[in-house]
């Protein structure tokens, strides 16, 4: 079933304050968006009357995950700040690449001046299907590795956008925050078709360690060469998971202080098994080995103690800024460098740490942008501020 939402873009008057930010209340955001579609505001109707040719912006979603909706909210808010007016035509491919390509062409055919693509699969489909319309992507972890751009300094085609890539230096810093005395950091990734981002992260981390003043850490890397499974079940998957567990156990026996899971979509779904292997195989009497991830999935699942992410809403607003530049100045999208955010979000799962007997350093709690798995003293409210009953708190593959 095709997911189509047309959202009138509201140009807020100066001095009007934005409503309470629903960044972390993703469930409420979804409901609000749907309500906004169903009931067009009077101001939007007034703008349509003043602008005979309203601009149309298309949004192609790969799935309706919370993070995708967060990006969608950022796009909407950015367009409101831009005062672009017109409509935001949102369509979701439901994880189907062909549908994504079709929807991308449909958005172009419906007159979208700029096509926003959220996430790497949607962007790849849009780039392949629509070569003649500016495409601005957001929340693409590795646009270069995914073949979306030819260079981070410019795509040299009709594509520009922002990446949610996290600087590996930040991962190393996070590791130091999690285990201040760490000297051996284990790394576990696979060698598959979608593991380029993870490999890139590790390579950049190695390079970062060579920079003067960088964090001194020994990276102990294990690469599972077993072919990644093509399905969620079956013998291939079991063999792959056993290989991951064996590699994790080997790392544990080698005396690593923490294990880093890069953004490997083959590995991250099995963070729970890896976590169990670490707990099982660590030498008797030694300290618990915390799991650190470059994404939030393992953290939300309660497997990783800490993980990193970026503000997807802000990242989407930065993508709107690129679109504005393309529309208003007519700049070629191919020369715009891939954008990103300096600020990273640290999410800590206190419950996971407590379950492992791991004592989270207090500076990490100060630094955290979200703390999961811990009831605060004055109620059962989740310390993240998010609705305890809403949102997807874990078990999601890839954390994307």
């Amino acid at each position, binding site marked *: 079933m095709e997911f189509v939402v047309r959202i009138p873009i509201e140009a807020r008057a*100066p*001095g009007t*304050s*934005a409503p309470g*930010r629903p*960044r972390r209340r993703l469930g409420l955001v979804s409901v609000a968006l749907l309500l906004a579609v169903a009931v067009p505001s009077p101001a939007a109707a007034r703008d349509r009357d003043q602008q005979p040719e309203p601009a149309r912006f298309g949004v192609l979603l790969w799935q309706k995950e919370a993070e995708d909706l967060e990006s969608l909210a950022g796009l909407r808010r*950015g367009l409101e*700040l*831009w*005062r672009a007016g017109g409509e935001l035509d949102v369509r979701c491919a439901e994880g189907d690449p062909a549908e994504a390509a079709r929807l991308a062409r449909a958005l172009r055919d419906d007159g979208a001046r700029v096509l926003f693509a959220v996430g790497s699969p949607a962007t790849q489909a849009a780039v392949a299907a629509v070569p003649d319309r500016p495409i601005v992507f957001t929340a693409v972890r590795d646009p270069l590795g995914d073949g979306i751009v030819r260079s981070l300094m410019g795509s040299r085609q009709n594509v520009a956008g922002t990446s949610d890539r996290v600087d590996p230096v930040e991962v190393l810093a996070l590791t130091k925050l999690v285990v201040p005395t760490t000297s051996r950091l284990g790394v576990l990734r696979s060698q598959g078709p979608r593991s380029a981002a993870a490999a890139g992260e590790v390579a950049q981390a190695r390079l970062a360690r060579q920079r003067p003043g960088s964090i001194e850490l020994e990276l102990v890397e294990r690469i599972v060469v077993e072919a990644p499974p093509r399905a969620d079940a079956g013998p291939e998957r079991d063999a792959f998971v056993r290989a991951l567990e064996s590699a994790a156990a080997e790392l544990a026996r080698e005396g690593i202080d923490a294990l880093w899971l890069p953004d490997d979509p083959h590995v991250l779904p099995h963070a729970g098994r890896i976590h169990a292997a670490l707990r099982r195989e660590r030498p008797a009497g030694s300290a618990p080995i915390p799991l650190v991830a470059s994404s939030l999935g393992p953290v939300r699942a309660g497997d990783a103690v800490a993980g990193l992410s970026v*503000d997807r809403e*802000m990242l989407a*607003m*930065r993508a*709107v*800024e690129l679109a*504005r*530049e393309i529309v208003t100045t007519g700049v070629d999208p191919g020369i715009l460098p891939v954008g990103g*955010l*300096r*600020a990273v979000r640290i999410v800590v799962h*206190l419950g996971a740490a407590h379950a492992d007997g791991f*004592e*989270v350093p*207090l*500076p990490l*709690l*100060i*630094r*955290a*942008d*979200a*703390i999961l798995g*811990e009831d*605060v*003293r*004055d109620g059962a409210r989740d*310390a*993240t*501020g998010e609705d305890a009953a809403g949102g997807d708190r874990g078990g999601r593959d890839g954390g994307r």
Partner: protein
Amino acid sequence: MEGADRTTAEAVPAGGARGGGSLVTRLFVVLVLVGLATAALLVFGFAPQTTRTFRDASEELIGDGARALWTQSRDDTDQTADLLVGLIRETAEARRRTLLDLPLGLYGGDVERIRERILEQDGERARQLERNVVVLAGEIERRAAERIDATLVELRARQGRLADGFAQRLRGSFLLVAGLLLVATLTILGFGLYRSVIVPIRALQRATRRIAASAEDSPAESAWPELPAARGAGEIAALTADFRAMVERLRLSRTELHRLNSELEAEVERKTGQLVQAAKMASIGTLAGGVAHEFNNVIGGVRGCLREALEDTPEPARREPLEIALRATERARGIVRQLLDFARPPVERKERVDLRALVGEAVALAMPQARRHGVSVEAEAFVADANRAVDPALVDADPGALHQVFLNLLTNAIQAMPGGGTLSLDLVLDADAIEVAVRDTGVGIAPEHLPHVFDPFYTSKDAGEDPGQRGSGLGLSVSYGIVQVHGGALTAESAVGRGSTFRVRLPRRANEG
């Protein structure tokens, strides 16, 4: 017997305890004293020391706990300060990064909206920090609680170790005190037992050995060793007293035995003498009897011849020598009759005889002779008095023979007092014997003659005396034999110049009345 009874009564007093109390009582008193000393030691010595030790240990424990908590509080304060500094730095850095990430191009240079956005971000950041601080406070509280719990656990463990050590020291001290008290008690008890039991028993043992040795060596009463004094515990003192009483009774028994032995020896010696005398007299009597029989026949022939010669001789001048010769034969026949009496005592037939009457008749016959010699006779026991009731002195005897005995003794006594004197007769009635004592105040018999006075033909009368007065030396011998034939005894005592006493002791006839 009275002395023995008295000693026994002293040896076993009522309650069996004497002097310083029974051994059980003494031991009880000693144990009570030791218990009181122990209690005093515990109350006034051990308990205060224990309290001080416990208080010092508790103060040390509390001090360590306070220092640990103070150190923890200081560390928490330092950590909180570091956290606050880090919080400020992180806030500034996060704000800087957030500002740099702002899509300023979308604001179109609208400073107001940019300011509004910044304030919005600051607010979000502030709310996030507030939430973080809440979590942080909870975490700090939890960790502080864990550290406090760990500290308390450590303190409890230390307290447990201190308590264990204290209890161990307490046990050690108690064992030491108990051991010392036990040693002291045993020493006291041992010394007390040594003084109360061992020493008196050893003294008794030494005394027993000395008594045994002295009794064997010398039975004399003066040779008995000094007995130990009754001292020590009640039982031991009683035992010593009993031992003393027993030894006293033994000493008395031995003395009596010694006396009886002496008497027995004397009696044996006397009986032996009597046997010797009897044997001697029997042999002499046999000889004398044979000689007297033959001689009596000769004398009979001579008397017949002399009577015929007298019948044939009418002239007085010639008859006088014949008559002298006839009287001589008469005398010779008397001597021969005495010899025959000596050889075969003239006991014809025994009958009941009252010695009072028999002796009284003999005295009456001797009175004329006594008066001639100026001898006074005292024989009240043998004088018949109708107004006086007396026990009869009955014996089974030949009255003629006994009469001869007493007449002979009276005659000898009168003859022993030629210058006068006193002849006294006494009668002693025993349960089974009757003794008649004949005493004179005459010249007495020399000690060398006394053992031979009953020998035949032995006489103390001077040979130059009147032949009619000189004895044949057979009177006492015959009397001796007559008394002996009656189962009695004739004994003599004498002192030169003071007189002699002859005692006739005869078996008493049972009183028929």
